[in-house]
């Protein structure tokens, strides 16, 4: 499923065909795709050989929600947050504390705590987004580090390093049933997150966010209030990550600040999204399945060693250096090689564009106007 902006940069005939079908199938296509993917994923509990594999499925779905939620900010605006684990941790502690102290319904507690996280995110995002990229990165990492400090020290409320035990929402369920229930809960959350992503992708709001990603100055000069839009995207993104954190707290039932706010989880989220491809609806999900399964396999085979840090670092470095647009982009490019007319604006460097324009302007040259007009698309 490609991002809508890429559809728009297709050459004229394809564009008009798509425009003709906007009212009907084209808008429904991603919804159908989400339904199909979710239906396929829902088969897992019936094919999983044992309760352990089922719980691994829950973990992977949790990663998928985190990566897809992250992608609402990272994918559209290009602002890479290394601090989303902070929202995950806040959401989980908020839910846990609400359930313990007020005895609230688990779903309500999760939503209330995620809304609270969204409110907290507003001033944080405001500070982080006042200047361009670098400060954003610094603030997001600093956020994780400071929350780690606070949640460890403030042990009266959070239980500190001793941990916080959250009562299970379904006390009379057996372990496999419990995993299965949470598998479907996470799957529903994933479906909602994917839907929100695709709605933003096709909206004017999403188009402005992509403008920020491609060229923030130009987006601003075209009248997009980039500061406000980035902040809204950041808050929505944090909200979904916080909901996932809440469900995780209810499922795992034991919270430790070092685990809930570990920065390595942030890097996994980024790795998953980048590996799959941030421009694609299912990119982060694909990355989460690949990286998440690999992580679970590693823990099963080798236990919890320091090696996973090295492996994560190496993989992240390789993806950034050689595959920054993700595997789905790589696959799409491979396919496009056999369809020469379908070219995206990003594949043409400014240098190529200038050369093509010069060729077009020279009258004796054979016309390449078709390509050039595509590129301006």
């Amino acid at each position: 499923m490609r991002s809508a902006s890429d559809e728009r940069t297709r050459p004229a005939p394809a564009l008009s065909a798509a425009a003709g079908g906007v009212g009907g199938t084209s808008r429904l296509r991603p919804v159908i795709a989400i339904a199909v993917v979710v239906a396929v994923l829902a088969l897992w509990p019936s094919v999983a050989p044992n309760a352990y594999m089922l719980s691994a499925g829950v973990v992977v779905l949790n990663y998928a929600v985190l990566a897809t939620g992250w992608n609402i900010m990272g994918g559209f605006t290009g602002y890479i947050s290394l601090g989303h684990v902070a929202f995950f941790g806040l959401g989980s502690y908020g839910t846990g504390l609400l359930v313990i102290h007020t005895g609230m319904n688990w779903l309500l507690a999760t939503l209330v705590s995620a809304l609270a996280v969204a409110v907290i995110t507003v001033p944080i995002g405001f500070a982080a987004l006042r200047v361009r990229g670098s400060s954003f990165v610094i603030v997001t990492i600093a956020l994780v580090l400071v929350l780690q400090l606070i949640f460890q020290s403030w042990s009266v409320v959070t239980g500190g390093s001793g941990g916080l035990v959250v009562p299970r929402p379904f006390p009379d369920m057996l372990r496999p049933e419990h995993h299965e229930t949470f598998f479907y809960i996470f799957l529903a959350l994933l479906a909602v997150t994917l839907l929100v992503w695709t709605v933003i992708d096709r909206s004017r709001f999403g188009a402005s966010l992509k403008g920020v990603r491609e060229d923030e100055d130009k987006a601003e000069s075209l009248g997009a209030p980039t500061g406000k839009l980035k902040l809204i995207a950041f808050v929505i993104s944090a909200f979904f990550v916080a909901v996932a954190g809440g469900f995780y707290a209810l499922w795992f039932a034991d919270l430790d600040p070092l685990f809930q706010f570990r920065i390595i989880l942030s890097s996994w989220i980024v790795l998953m999204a980048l590996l799959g491809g941030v421009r694609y609806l299912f990119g982060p999900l694909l990355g989460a399945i690949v990286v998440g399964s690999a992580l679970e396999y590693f823990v099963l085979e080798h236990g919890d060693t320091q090696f996973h840090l090295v492996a994560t670092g190496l993989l992240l470095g390789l993806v950034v250096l050689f595959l920054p647009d993700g595997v789905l982009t790589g696959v799409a490019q491979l396919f496009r090689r056999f369809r020469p007319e379908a070219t995206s604006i990003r594949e043409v460097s400014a240098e190529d564009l200038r050369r093509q324009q010069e060729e077009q302007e020279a009258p004796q040259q054979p016309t390449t106007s078709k390509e050039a007009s595509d590129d301006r698309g």
Partner: protein
Amino acid sequence: MITGTLLFQSLILGVLLGGLYALLAAGLTLYFGIMRVVMLAHAAFIILAAYIAWRFSTATGLDPMISLVFTIPLFFGIGFAIQRWLISRLKPATMTMMSVLITFAIALIIEGLLGQVFTGTQRRINLPYGASSVDFFGAAIPVVQIISFVLAGLSLIALYLVLKKTRFGRALRATIQHREAAQLVGIDTNRTAGLGFGLGLATAAVGGTALSLQATIFPSLHWHWIGPLMAIIVVGGLGSVPGAAIAALLLGIIRVMLELWWTPTWAQTIFYLALFLTLMVRPQGFFGGRLAQRF
């Protein structure tokens, strides 16, 4: 009971800590000036240098500071290599974000390897002068803190002299100020940028060795350092070395003073508070120039 002597002692200790912060933040500022890169692996290299100093000292029985003889050239080379072979490969359009991920990946690899090789056990160098302190107008100042402050101060002076007085320093400053103009007057900006990165990482070698004298080290310690250092360079204004030094001294003093009332963990949050307030009130930092405006 907080007495005048105690306040005075905290002030001195704060200045000593601030000096170390200033040296470490200077490296971070240098990278930012050269490539607009937030080098997250800086603190990981500091811890790596501290581990090398510890290993050297326990294996040979010599003073850990002698390890600087080989760590400085080694780190200089690594810094050069990182800039030339990793950072400069990235596309300019996504440089800011992707360079953060690359350096984050390097930090993870270093932390993981340190954990693999030396395990997660906390390490500390046993020095003959480790526990002794000097009486300074009634304040007891540990000798190790004075040594690391002197090391930091000497390296900062050396860095200043290199930047201001040498031909290479002029080329480096020209590269930082305006890359194209620097190329026009015949500076090989790529090579200069690489050497600048080497210089930045060499400060990490000195800082790490200074740290190994006075602190207990463990692989994940670098996260406790990178946060304060990033806060310092933002408060000082991204890209401004004097700004970073002033911010480092101020925040170092405030942090140590706060420990009179708060636990060290809570005192540490002052860096993040300062970072947040700076971005709210004056996002370009308090001493930053033209550079800090847009980043």
